[in-house]
């Protein structure tokens, strides 16, 4: 398994990470080595094995639908880099 720089660039875009050319080259090598190590799983016979996404026997944990105090608006936006009138401000979404 060897990842090309272009494949790594594509993954970085999916993850919304701006990476430098050096980082792309570094991760291409390192991710390839880790994936090669993971190749050993392919030899395990699992055609009749159910996946375990979650270890607990709990399912459908119910709670009463009761109104409770929620985070005050001022606290919810207190850590925002940019906010106005109780809203988060974002950068331009649409091109001119």
């Amino acid at each position, binding site marked *: 398994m060897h990842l090309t720089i272009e494949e790594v660039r594509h993954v970085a875009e999916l993850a919304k*990470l701006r*990476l430098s050319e050096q*980082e792309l080259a570094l991760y291409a090598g390192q991710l390839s080595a880790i994936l090669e190590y993971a190749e050993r799983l392919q030899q395990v016979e699992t055609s009749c094995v159910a996946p375990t996404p979650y270890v607990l026997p709990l399912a459908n944990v119910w709670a009463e639908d009761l109104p409770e105090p929620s985070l005050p608006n001022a606290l919810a936006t207190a850590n925002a880099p940019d906010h106005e009138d109780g809203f988060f401000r974002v950068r331009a979404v649409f091109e001119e």
Partner: protein
Amino acid sequence: MSKALYELTLHAAWAALQRGDFSAVELTQSLLDRIAQVDGQINAYLTVTAEQALAQATAADACRSRGETAPLLGIPLAVKDVLCTEGVRTTCGSRILEHFIPPYTATAVQRLAAAGMVLLGKTNTDEFAMGSSTENSGYFPTHNPWDLARVPGGSSGGSGAAVAAQMAMAALGSDTGGSVRLPASYCGVVGLKPSYGRVSRYGLVAYGSSLDQIGVLAKDVRDAALLLGVIAGQDPHDSTTMPAPVPAYSQLLSEDVRGLRIGLPDEYFVEGLQPEVNAAVRAAIDVLAGLGAEVVRISLSNTDKALPVYYLVATAEASANLARFDGVRYGFSADSTNILDNYRDSRGQGFGAEVKRRIMLGTYVLSAGYYDAYYLKAQQVRTLIKQDFESAFTQVDVIASPVAPTTAFRLGEKVDDPLAMYLSDLFTIPLNLAGMCGISVPCGFDAQGLPIGLQLMGPHLGEATLLRAAHAYEQATPWHTRWA
């Protein structure tokens, strides 16, 4: 010479506070002085909340003078900086959260506070708990109190070093693949990882949600048992907490392990194990056998697949969890003109190298065309690993092994080779995949004077038996009385 107050165990300090031997303010001041004296070399803390700590201690003394008490009244503790603390900066060891002040407190921390804890501060961690050495902290590495040129283990290395250097009576950590047990082993303290679902994860900044569990680092097993009793239990804010009642763990401790069946997995005593680690762990098992436990050879045959399964499952979950850092609602925001560039730049500049590596790996294994080959396959093999443990626990009560293949390595030794770093977690990761409980207990030192940890593992919600075995071993040996 009498002991300094910071040298006491948590349970001894609590009893002394009850007797009125000293005040919570005096105890807290002793810990704060100790931090001021030694943390310049160790760098265990990211934030020390000295003023608030003394105010909490004053309140604890006032409470006690009214005849009231609580299980941790006036006891100074530290908390890993991945747990939210209302009004106290919480960085996760990341520059992206350098100025983040949580608007609420994690349930586990809230329960400590309700039991009367004095919060000393927040401890260093690998960024977002991703690492085995604390070198991935976005701020500075933490040093091992036994040898400052070595790592304390990770990712709860700040908590491990703080307890080992007696800068906290105990500390909270989190364990996704060994992050409580590894630093406990490298620093020579007790590290307990409870079963998945035993302790609420509400307010723990998520890394691998199906694996993460909050644990404790303590000076001895009794202290760990006490703390687990306080933080464990169902929480309406975390639907993955188990409704099972919480036993009085510290009252169930005994030194009697007669008839206890201890499994020794062949797969954990392999080539590559540092000879002194092998010898110390086998000697520890002989001690337990001498106390009347029955030792049984067992097999956990899929152990060699645990590491690749972990690095596929944990990174996939991390890539989804860390999508929340968008430069809009909290955290670092880059100076970009449109929203897409703002996402890319904020994340690209805000995250460190290991976090980006794991987000990339996780994004790749979840991406179209690779999901079945990597992520689904890993989840299937995870089932086999869990079944190994389930089958073993029909024959034995606890499983014993080393915590790590070696003692603490040197700072800088593995930073350029992520795969070599990941191998330090070889013996701790399988338990997280199975969701069961485990503990690291000091069991000796190597020729260089570095601590070695014995790992005991128990079935899901098997903490009471696990703690009993660990306590019996600890009380029969001198290791827990030695300090860096």
